[in-house]
C-alpha cells in the first residue's frame, strides 16, 4: 500500500500488481461479511439463522484452507501492505481455528430456554414490553454473524499488517464489531451494555494513542512501512523524541489490546459483562491478534531498539503478571477470575516479546494457540452452568459440581490445569516454550519472577477445583445444561487440543518453529 501511495505521489499512477491468492483469506472473510450483511437484508427472518450459520462456518473453513494453501510463502503482499510470512500464516490459521470454536459457542441455541445468548433485539429496552414480545416470537439477533465475520477479518488483517496504517485499520475492523457484540447479551443486559460502553470508550481512547504513536513514527521515519521504520531506526540510532514518543504511544495501544497492566482495567468488566461466547472470542482471538501485531511491530520495526524498550517491557510484564494473579486470588465470579487470569497470561506472553529471538516468536505463537483453545473451552463450560436467572457465574454456586456433573467439571479442571501450566497439558508446553525463549533471550530473572507468579496463580485455579470437587453441592445449586452439539463440539475440541498439544506438541512446535521468522 505504501508503494501505492508512493506511486500516487509521483503523479504516475500505476496499477500495483497484487497476488490475490496471498491475501485471499482476508478477502474471503471480509467479502463474506458483506454478503452476510446482505443476507440480513434479503433473507426472511426464519431462514436467516441457518443461512448465516452455513455462511459463517463455510467462510471460516474456506479461509482456513486458503491459509493452509499459502503455507511456506514468504512475501510482502498487496504492494507491501501485508506480510505473508510464517508468523502471519500460523497466527491466521490459529485465529481461524479459534474463531470456528468461538463461533460454535456463539451459535449455541440449546442452553437458554428463550433462544440463544443474545438479546432478541438489541435495541429493545431491557424489561420492556417490546422485549418480551420479541422474545416470545423467538426472534434472534442474526446481525451478530456479519459482526463476527468482520471482527475475524480485522484480526486476520491485524496479524498480517506490515505498515502502521493497515495495522490501524485492522485494529479498528477487529474492535468495532466487538464493541457491539459485547453489548448484546440476552440476560443481564445492563451489565452487557455497561461492558459495551466501557469497552468502546476505552478502546477508542487507546486507538487514539495508537494512531498518534503511528503519526510520530511516520514523522520520524517518513514512512509507515515497518521495514522502512526499521531502516530509519538503524540509520538514525541517536536520540529522537519522535521515535520515543511514537514507540511509547504505539505500545500503549497494543498493551491495551492485550490487557497488560496498567492498561488492563477494561478486561475484567468487559469479560464479565459480555455474553460468554463473545468473551471467549475476545479472550482467545483478540489476545492472539494483538500479540501477533505486537510481535511484528516490536521485532520488525523496533527490533533495533530492543535495548531501549526491553526494560519498559520488563516493568510492564512484572506488573501484569502480579496484578493479574494477585487480584484473581479473591475473585468470586468465574468469568472475572478468568479475566484476571487472562491478564496474567498476557504478562507471561510479554516474556516472549522481551526475548526478541526466534524462540520467542515460536513460543508465543504456540502459547497463544494453547491458551486460546483452553480459554474457549473454559468459557464454553461456564456457559453451561446455569440456574433460573441464566448463567451461574458466582463461584459459590459451583460447589459440588464435580459430583453432579463429573465430566463437565473434569473438562473444566483440565482447562484450569492447562492455565496453571501443569505438565501433559497444552498450557505447560506453551509456558515452557515462552520461558525457554526468555531464558535464552537473557531474561532469566524475569522467568523466575514469572514462575513465582505462576505459583500464586495455582492457588485460584486450585480453589476452583476445591469448590467443584471437594465441597458438598448446594441443595438449590445450578445445574449443568445439556448443550446442543455446537457447544459440545467446541468444548470437546478445546479439550482434545489442550491434551494433544500437551502430549504430542511436536507437530505444532515444528509449525511454529518453521514459522518464526518475520518477513520485512
Amino acid at each position: 500500500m505504501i508503494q501505492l501511495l508512493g506511486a500516487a505521489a509521483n503523479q504516475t499512477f500505476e496499477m500495483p500488481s497484487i497476488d490475490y491468492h496471498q491475501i485471499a483469506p482476508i478477502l474471503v472473510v471480509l467479502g463474506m461479511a458483506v454478503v452476510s450483511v446482505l443476507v440480513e437484508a434479503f433473507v426472511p427472518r426464519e431462514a436467516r439463522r441457518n443461512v448465516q450459520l452455513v455462511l459463517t462456518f463455510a467462510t471460516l473453513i474456506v479461509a482456513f484452507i486458503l491459509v493452509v494453501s499459502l503455507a511456506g510463502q514468504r512475501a510482502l503482499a498487496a504492494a507491501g501492505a501485508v506480510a505473508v510470512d510464517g508468523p502471519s500464516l500460523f497466527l491466521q490459521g490459529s485465529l481461524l481455528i479459534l474463531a470456528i470454536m468461538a463461533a460454535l459457542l456463539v451459535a449455541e441455541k440449546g442452553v437458554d430456554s428463550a433462544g440463544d445468548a443474545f438479546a432478541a433485539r438489541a435495541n429493545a429496552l431491557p424489561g420492556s414490553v417490546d422485549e418480551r414480545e420479541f422474545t416470545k416470537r423467538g426472534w434472534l439477533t442474526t446481525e451478530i454473524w456479519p459482526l463476527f465475520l468482520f471482527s475475524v477479518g480485522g484480526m486476520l488483517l491485524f496479524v498480517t499488517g506490515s505498515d502502521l496504517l493497515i495495522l490501524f485499520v485492522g485494529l479498528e475492523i477487529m474492535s468495532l464489531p466487538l464493541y457491539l457484540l459485547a453489548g448484546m447479551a440476552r440476560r443481564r443486559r445492563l451489565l452487557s451494555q455497561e461492558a459495551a460502553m466501557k469497552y468502546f470508550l476505552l478502546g477508542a481512547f487507546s486507538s487514539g494513542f495508537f494512531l498518534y504513536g503511528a503519526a510520530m513514527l511516520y514523522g520520524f521515519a517518513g514512512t509507515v512501512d515497518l521495514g522502512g521504520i526499521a531502516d530509519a531506526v538503524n540509520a538514525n540510532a541517536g536520540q529522537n523524541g519522535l521515535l520515543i514518543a511514537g514507540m511509547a504511544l504505539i505500545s500503549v495501544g497494543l498493551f491495551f489490546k492485550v490487557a497488560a497492566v496498567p492498561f488492563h482495567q477494561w478486561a475484567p468488566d468487559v469479560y464479565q459483562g459480555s455474553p460468554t461466547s463473545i468473551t471467549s472470542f475476545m479472550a482467545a482471538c483478540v489476545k492472539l491478534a494483538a500479540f501477533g501485531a505486537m510481535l511484528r511491530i516490536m521485532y520488525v520495526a523496533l527490533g533495533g531498539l530492543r535495548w531501549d524498550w526491553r526494560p519498559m517491557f520488563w516493568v510492564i510484564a512484572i506488573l501484569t503478571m502480579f496484578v493479574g494473579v494477585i487480584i484473581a486470588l479473591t475473585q468470586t465470579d468465574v468469568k472475572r477470575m478468568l479475566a484476571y487470569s487472562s491478564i496474567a497470561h498476557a504478562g507471561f506472553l510479554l516474556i516472549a516479546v522481551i526475548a526478541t529471538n526466534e524462540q520467542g516468536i515460536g513460543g508465543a505463537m504456540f502459547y497463544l494457540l494453547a491458551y486460546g483453545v483452553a480459554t474457549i473451552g473454559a468459557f464454553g463450560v461456564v456457559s453451561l452452568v446455569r440456574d433460573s436467572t441464566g448463567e451461574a457465574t458466582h463461584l459459590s454456586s459451583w460447589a459440588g459440581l464435580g459430583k453432579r456433573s463429573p465430566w463437565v467439571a473434569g473438562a473444566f479442571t483440565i482447562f484450569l490445569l492447562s492455565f496453571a501450566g501443569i505438565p501433559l497439558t497444552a498450557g505447560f508446553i506453551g509456558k515452557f516454550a515462552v520461558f525457554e525463549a526468555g531464558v535464552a533471550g537473557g531474561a532469566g530473572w524475569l522467568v523466575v519472577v514469572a514462575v513465582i507468579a505462576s505459583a500464586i496463580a495455582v492457588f485460584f485455579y486450585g480453589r476452583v477445583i476445591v469448590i467443584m470437587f471437594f465441597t458438598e453441592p448446594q441443595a438449590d445449586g445450578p445445574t449443568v445444561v445439556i448443550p446442543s452439539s455446537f457447544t459440545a463440539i467446541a468444548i470437546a475440541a478445546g479439550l482434545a487440543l489442550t491434551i494433544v498439544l500437551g502430549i504430542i506438541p511436536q507437530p505444532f512446535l515444528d509449525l511454529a518453529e518453521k514459522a518464526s521468522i518475520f518477513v520485512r
Partner: protein
Amino acid sequence: MSTTHYLVLSAILFSLGVLGVLVRRNALIVFMCVEMMLNASNLAFVAFAQQNGNLYGQTIAFFVMVVAAAEVVVGLAIIVTIYRTRRSASVDEPSLLKY
C-alpha cells in the same frame, strides 16, 4: 509556518482530547474528545506528510476519517442504547461491573 507549529497544535489537540476523556462525564462528550485525539493525529500526519514531502500522511488522514466515521456509528449506537436504558449518558452512572 513550519511543521513544528502544526505539531504543537496537534499535541495540544491531542492533550485536550485526553483531558476531556478524563474529566467529562457525558459519554457523548467523552466520545467527542476521542474523536479529537484522532483528528489531532490526522493533523500530525498531514504535517509530517508536508515535512517529508510524500503523500502518505495525507492519504492516511483520509483512511482515519473513514475509520472515525465507522467508530461514530458504532459508538452512537452503544451510547444511545445505554441512554435509552438508563435515561442518562453519564459514564459514571451506576457501574455494576467492578472489583
